């Protein structure tokens, strides 16, 4: 369900948030096409949440502008809020109300009629596996189900854009998988544009587009597959005791390495034969030698390495 117009449904230009002297978000530019599954990625403290808060009108930008579904976040906050759903890092639920009552409250806040709310709540309860718990109070739900209810609450009014701020934070693996399944179901059903933040980069593999943000700025963006393919065909990992001399020894052949203290990683452009030769050469000198497909984590680490900052790159990613 792409938008008829070619205008991105979320567009930010020079979006900036300053707290005193600190720049939480620094001249952020974003374009999210309608219907896209967009990931805003970066370590804790990189400005992702602040960016989402500005885009969703919770806080006002210090400078720059952003338009959601054609509405300016600063001048038309109410119109923006009508077009979006937001799921924060912590639930926006009334713990004293039941699952159904929470959805009804949310639906009424968006001006939906009782009949619309009932219809939509039925769909969402089925989609998110909450049907059997409709009368249970929100306080008694497990963490995973409460997150599911919070997402259902965020989409009861069929928003055009859904902002998810770290939707799987604090959840265990099965619940994280369930949440992603719900979001995939929701996208398939409604074609809603999803803008999510996460610092679990492996969760962003399914995104159509991602933007890496660090220090409040976009440092790399594109389709995950393209970013990964552009990095290198393979990542070479070398584990051993004395890594620094090894890095210098291998640099002429394989280029610069990332050293995270336990292993060296190289962008490997060589052939299987090159790897075989390396295995014989290093046999006994290293603890492990590994060739693997690169992923978004690697992209992020190499982007960081290319743009050195005060923060050590390996500490940044989960």
């Amino acid at each position, binding site marked *: 369900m792409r938008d008829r117009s070619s205008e991105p449904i979320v567009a930010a230009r020079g979006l900036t948030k300053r707290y005193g002297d600190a720049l939480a978000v620094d001249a952020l530019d974003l374009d999210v096409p309608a219907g896209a599954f967009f990931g805003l990625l970066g370590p804790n403290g990189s400005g992702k949440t602040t960016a989402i808060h500005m885009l969703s009108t919770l*806080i006002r930008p210090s400078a720059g502008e952003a338009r959601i579904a054609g509405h300016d976040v600063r001048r038309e906050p109410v119109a923006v809020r009508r077009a979006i759903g937001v799921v*924060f890092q912590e639930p926006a639920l009334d713990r004293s109300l039941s699952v159904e009552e929470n959805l009804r409250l949310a639906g*009424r806040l968006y001006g939906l009629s009782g009949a619309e709310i009932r219809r939509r709540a039925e769909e969402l309860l089925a989609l998110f596996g909450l049907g059997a718990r409709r009368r249970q109070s929100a306080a008694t739900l497990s963490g995973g189900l409460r997150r599911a209810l919070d997402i259902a609450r965020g989409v009861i009014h069929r928003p055009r854009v859904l902002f998810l701020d770290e939707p799987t934070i604090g959840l265990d693996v099965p619940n994280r998988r369930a949440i992603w399944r719900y979001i995939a179901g929701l996208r398939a059903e409604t074609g809603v544009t999803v803008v999510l933040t996460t610092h679990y980069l492996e969760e962003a593999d399914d995104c159509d587009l991602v933007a890496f943000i660090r220090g409040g700025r976009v440092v790399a963006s594109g389709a995950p597959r393209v970013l990964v393919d552009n990095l290198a065909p393979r990542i070479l990992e070398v584990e051993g005791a004395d890594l620094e001399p090894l890095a210098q020894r291998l640099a002429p052949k394989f280029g610069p390495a990332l050293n995270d203290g336990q292993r060296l990683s190289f962008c490997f452009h060589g052939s299987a034969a090159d790897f075989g030769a390396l295995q014989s050469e290093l046999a006994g000198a290293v603890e492990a030698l590994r060739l693997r497909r690169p992923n978004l984590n690697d992209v992020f680490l190499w982007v960081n390495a290319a743009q050195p900052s005060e923060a050590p790159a390996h500490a940044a990613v989960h």
Partner: protein
Amino acid sequence: MLRPVYAVMEREVLRLLRQPARLAAAFVRPLVWLLVIGAGFGALYEPAGRAGYQQFLVPGVVGMTLLFGAMLAALGTVHDKEFGVMRMLVMAPLPHAWIVIAKLLAATLVAVLQALVLLAALTALGYLAAGTAPLLLATALAATAFACSAIGMLIAAFSRTLENFAAVMNFVIFPVFFLSGSLYPVQALPAGLRAAAMLNPYTYGVDLLRHALPAGAAGLGPDFSIGRDLAVLLLFTGAATALACWRFSREAAHAPLVRRLARKGS
């Protein structure tokens, strides 16, 4: 605009009904004042006698229920501010000032509901005199509840956190209650206290209730005219609501909420 307001009011009523202790407190507390303290002080209170003082206390305890009910509901906004529901409200497609209006109406509604429960109990116990003026009583209940809710919303809009229930009781609700004409005629107070009581908008709510629920005994009637009571209550409610609406429209009012939501990531 009406559905969101209705939603907030319905939530407040549901919460009240789900907290039987709160509902019970709404008429047990005033009845304790009326039956125990009223009888005790009535014995000391020469001009009216025991029954006369108790009758004098009736508007005071009805006001008490409105005050506690409205303030606790309105001050619940401070708690909501940091927790779930305010997040829903700030993301709803309404100007943030409407949150204040909705909460004000909701707090007023639950306060009046609690007062009606108490009035039923008072009727059963025979404390509602024949001179009760229904229309004036309804007006007094509504105007007083609105004013109490407005005090609560004003505090809620400006305070960052309210440490706990005890702080609210001791520093807000009790002073408002004691510095009014609830327990004693304002005219009889020493000059300093009288001045404080006359600055307290709640005093005029109790006075209006006193017009609607006449005590009968001489010297224990209302202190002010109905017109003055209504004017003060309406002006105060309007001004306090406007100020609270203004504050809620500012980003600073939502700083605790934003801070909490940015805690884990940022």
